[in-house]
């Protein structure tokens, strides 16, 4: 008898536990199904909310207006391109007139220049004078320019000779710019 009672008690406990499990599972199943449904609906609504179609339509409208101004756009593009490139050219191009002016200013009056050649790297000058002091002044002036780093960086005297036929001294110098 006592055994029967015990068995019934066990059965009740198990039944309760099973019912509880079933309830939990029922809730979990419903929740998962509703959760998936709601997530799907939520994402769908979000997609609808951030749909870029109106923006694309407005883009098309603006592009349509811009197509009427494409001539101006092309001109502006070329203008900006020219400005950028002209700015570069003005920065990179060398002004040899400053070099020639600077060097010619240092030539004594009684020294005549026969040959003068300047490019972007060097300058070669050949001159003659009846006076040795003029030749000396010329060399001193150029040496000062090298020391002051004014226009020229170096000075080489290629030749210094007496031209007996003309009774004058001839000098040839080369400088690096």
């Amino acid at each position, binding site marked *: 008898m006592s055994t029967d009672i015990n068995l019934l008690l066990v059965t009740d406990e198990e039944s309760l536990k099973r019912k509880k499990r079933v309830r939990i599972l029922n809730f979990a199943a419903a929740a998962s199904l509703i959760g*998936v449904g709601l997530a799907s609906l939520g994402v*769908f609504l979000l997609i609808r909310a*951030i749909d870029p179609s109106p923006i694309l339509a407005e883009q098309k409208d603006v592009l349509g207006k811009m197509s009427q101004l494409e001539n101006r756009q092309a001109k502006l593009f070329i203008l900006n391109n020219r400005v950028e490139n002209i700015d570069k050219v003005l920065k990179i191009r060398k002004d040899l007139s400053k070099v020639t002016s600077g060097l010619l200013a240092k030539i004594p009056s009684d020294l005549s220049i026969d040959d003068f050649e300047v490019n972007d790297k060097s300058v070669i000058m050949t001159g003659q004078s009846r006076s040795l002091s003029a030749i000396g002044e010329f060399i001193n002036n150029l040496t000062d320019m090298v020391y002051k780093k004014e226009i020229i960086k170096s000075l080489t005297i290629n030749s210094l000779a007496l031209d007996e036929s003309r009774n004058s001294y001839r000098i040839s110098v080369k400088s690096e710019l």
Partner: protein
Amino acid sequence: MNGKINADLKSLEAIYNKNKPYLIQIVIILASIILFFQFVVPQFRTLLEVREEGIEASLKLATLKTNLDVLTKVNEEVLDSQLEVLSSALPLSKDFIGMLNSVYSTAQKTGVNLGSFSLKVGDLSGSEKINDFPTVKLSVPINSNIATINSFVETVNRAVPLSEVYLVKIGGVSSTVGLSFYYKPLGSSVYSEDALVSPVSQKAITLVKQLSEFENTSISMQPIPSATSSATQ
């Protein structure tokens, strides 16, 4: 053998009977998980893509609106005159007329006597380097004294098309000035409709003003004095 099978079937049946009340719920949960991965995850990916597309479209629209605003406000007449000045200073192609005008106009202004000169055009069939500045070299013989030649060099430096004096050679008999005239093609720059259109900058206005003060021979198109010129490669 059959007995074993029966025993397994019985145990399976027992397990089934024991878990029968949970089966439907478990199936629903599994189905929900499958639905989540089959539908919600791809939907979420789509959401991210649409969001990205929306951000890009918004940015592009903002750029287009800015561009439209810039283009609407631009005064086309002023733009044309600015472009004319800039293009004469740095032509898109070899501007032989501009070069010759520049040389002859400078010669007239400085009073130098020009000899017959030659143009070093370069390889016309070859492709031009986009990053460098291509030039047309012009060797100008001048019969004048050293001061006048220097004046010529100074003046040509402030004339358009822009040039660089790369050589000054003054000799007893004849003198030569070497000029490099710059030009720059547009090149194959990538055009994009959503690229920002820059308005005419202050730098551009200053540059146009500076170049307008240069001796503009290309625009005035002065008649070329009769002189012999030869093109050499």
